[in-house]
């Protein structure tokens, strides 16, 4: 970032339209919500330490698991992967000076922040919505939740959707129009491809959920009967429309993380990615099939058995392109000279944990098995293996990998390794245990449970507290490295084939860093700085 001697720092950040600054804003805000959502999760696990009441009221428990879900999905994973990494690195990797619509980009960020305040303000008003993250009718109708908290929740959902849509449109236009000469679609990086598919999913799916949330808001406030059976409305329709968005949304949450992992693995294996084109096709197929599987969330709602069979088939099919990706990552590592630096550890962690989450997803896709496992802790465990074991480990891989590019300093390797291994062990402690208690029949979202399962829940709680606390290693590492870390070489991972790293001739091994990162990055940024007057859009 160029230095301004006159403009105060707060103004630079508050009024910024620079994609890198907005990316950093997104990341910092999202990590803040990661902490808040994590605190909620630890409180929930503490409550589940003993069967029966432990230390909170049932209503508080409901509010906390609702806000945990909403926060982790809409205020943490999607913003950090799309808003954070996408904003920062997509323009750099295609050689663009900025996003196509820089002002719109800033608007996306501020709408996201407003939506976040709507989701959380209920706690201040002593009227927080307790709708789960799904907000099913009739619970979210006036008859189920009379308070204003649910209205705020619906508006927040709507607003975060608008923010996503603006971001998605912006990303797609940027990729179409702002590529540097020579950057063709056929040689875009896999990270950029993942962002393209993600943006497409956002653009196609989010308006539908915006519609459905508005309709529920109308049901609550203006006397309509869209989802109320008394007036001819259909409650199951809500679930169809909701999952038409929210199933593609899980691919919004995983695809950018796959993109990051596809960046990291080849760089640390010393080989190019195995099967570039199949990787791109796999992402496109996942994106397309993502729209055809939504009703697998609704097998127990009494929809037509023939429809269920169709959705079972499409859901199982989506395992194929995902399998292609897993095998290609392994193929990239096979026979390579692997450097086990922290980003690579997290990338390998992603592949292994995501495989577990993917395979138990295929179990659940089977209708008869789903009848047994629906709404048990198995489902909770599945979503956490793919979202924590998948997306969040992907985020960590990305942060460790790109931290030198963003700050010019290295993160501490030793702390990074501790962070990785402690995270891996405790995350399996929580979520593998949840698999088992799920099969044993413990329902999710319930405050009380069968006392026979108490010791397993205690294991999960201890692991969850550990999982929360070891993240402090990461936050300490980031805070310390950002100001006191070792100055990074300009191209610390020796990446020769990606535009976001300055091209530095491979130095002889003894003198690896002839030019400091700060100088080299400043040079790159100067080349890519926006020229004055190109913002006009006529």
């Amino acid at each position, binding site marked *: 970032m160029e230095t301004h001697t006159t403009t105060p720092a707060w103004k630079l950040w508050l009024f910024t339209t620079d994609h890198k600054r907005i990316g950093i804003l997104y990341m910092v805000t999202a990590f803040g919500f990661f902490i808040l959502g994590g605190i909620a999760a630890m409180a929930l696990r503490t409550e589940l330490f003993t069967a029966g009441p432990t230390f909170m009221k049932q209503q508080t428990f409901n509010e906390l698991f609702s806000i945990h879900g909403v926060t982790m999905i809409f205020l943490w994973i999607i913003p950090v992967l799309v808003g954070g990494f996408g904003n920062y690195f997509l323009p750099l990797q295609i050689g663009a000076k900025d996003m196509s619509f820089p002002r719109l980009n800033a608007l996306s960020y501020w709408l996201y922040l407003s939506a976040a305040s709507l989701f959380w303000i209920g706690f201040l008003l002593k009227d927080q919505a307790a709708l789960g993250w799904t907000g099913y009718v009739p619970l979210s109708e006036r008859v189920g939740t009379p308070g204003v908290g649910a209205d705020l929740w619906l508006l927040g959902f709507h607003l975060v959707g608008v923010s996503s849509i603006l971001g998605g449109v912006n990303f797609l236009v940027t990729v179409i129009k702002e590529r540097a000469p020579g950057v063709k679609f056929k040689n875009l990086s896999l990270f950029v491809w993942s962002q393209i598919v993600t943006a497409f999913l956002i653009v196609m799916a989010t308006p*539908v959920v915006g519609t459905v949330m508005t309709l529920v808001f109308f049901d609550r406030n203006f006397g309509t009967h869209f989802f109320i059976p008394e007036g001819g409305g259909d409650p199951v329709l809500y679930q169809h429309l909701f999952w038409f968005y929210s199933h593609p949304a899980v691919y919004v949450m995983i695809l950018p993380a796959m993109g990051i992992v596809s960046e990291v693995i080849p760089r640390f294996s010393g080989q190019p990615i195995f099967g570039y084109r199949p990787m791109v096709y796999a992402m496109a197929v996942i994106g397309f099939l993502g729209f055809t599987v939504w009703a697998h969330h609704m097998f127990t709602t009494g929809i037509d058995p023939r429809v269920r069979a169709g959705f079972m088939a499409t859901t199982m099919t989506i395992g194929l392109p995902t399998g292609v990706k897993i095998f290609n990552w392994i193929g990239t590592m096979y026979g390579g000279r692997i450097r086990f630096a922290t980003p690579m550890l997290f990338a390998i962690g992603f592949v292994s944990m995501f495989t577990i989450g993917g395979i138990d997803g295929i179990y659940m896709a089977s209708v008869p098995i789903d009848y047994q496992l629906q709404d048990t802790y198995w489902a909770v465990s599945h979503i956490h293996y793919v979202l924590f074991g998948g997306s969040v480990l992907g985020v960590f891989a990305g942060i460790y990998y790109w931290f030198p590019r963003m700050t010019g300093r290295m993160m501490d390797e030793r702390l990074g390794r501790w962070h990785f291994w402690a995270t891996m062990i405790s995350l399996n402690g929580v979520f593998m245990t949840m698999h088992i208690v799920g099969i044993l029949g413990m329902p999710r979202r319930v405050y009380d449970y069968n006392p026979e399962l108490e010791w397993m829940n205690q294991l999960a709680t201890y692991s969850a507290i550990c999982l929360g606390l070891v993240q402090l290693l990461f936050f300490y590492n980031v805070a310390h490295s950002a100001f006191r870390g070792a100055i990074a070489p300009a191209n610390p991972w020796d990446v020769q084939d990606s535009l976001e790293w300055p091209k530095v001739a491979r130095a002889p091994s003894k003198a690896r860093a002839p030019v400091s990162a700060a100088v080299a990055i400043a040079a790159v940024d100067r080349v890519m700085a926006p020229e004055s007057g190109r913002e006009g859009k006529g």
Partner: protein
Amino acid sequence: MLLYYGVIFKGPVLGIAVILVLAALYGWVYEDYTTWRRAPQHAEEELPDDASLMRKWMAKPVAWWGVILFLLTEIMLFGGLFVVYFTAHASSPVWPPASAPELPVFATGINTAILVSSGVTMHVGIMFLKRNYRTAFLVLFAATIALGALFLFNQVAEYIELFGEGFNLSSGVYGASFFALTGVHGAHVTAGIGGLTGVFTRGLFGQFNAKRHTGIEGVALYWHFVDFVWIFLYLVIYVRVV
């Protein structure tokens, strides 16, 4: 609880929000107004006539692509509303419900013709602009705005009539989906009139010419979309072709 409700929605927060939105709108219009000469030209019009369609599309300006993708999201938004309508239709034994009043098919047909003709006047206006006939362009755009406003006026009149017959948002899922579809469309018409008035005013101040007309093309795409959706709406809700 009502106290909190009032504080959030009716109190100073609402005032601040309105001020922020107006300030943002002002900034947007101001920037467009002051920088229009620096806006990128239509590179696709410089290409040879036999250039491939893909090449021409890729050369279209950033704003054109932005509007196209925005309209994709709009299609999905109306798609969601149509799904609600069709689901209610499919699950009702009698459609429309016997208690619902007869919709004014003929009067709304005329209104449809008004809206479609506004699309035609706008299109011809842009053709004139591209040949630098500025007066004809301005007159035709004024006509477009007037026709759009007339459509909206008729729509409001129809609403008042239907309200008078006791048909409103609370009239079961039929009333709700009728008013949702036509109401959301009406909101789009209102926004379209706003956009048209914006480019028309800029035209009055001498902006836009044969080479630089991206802003107008954006509004035009949007207005054509609004027309197009209305034809669907009319055929489905009033004529009931399905």
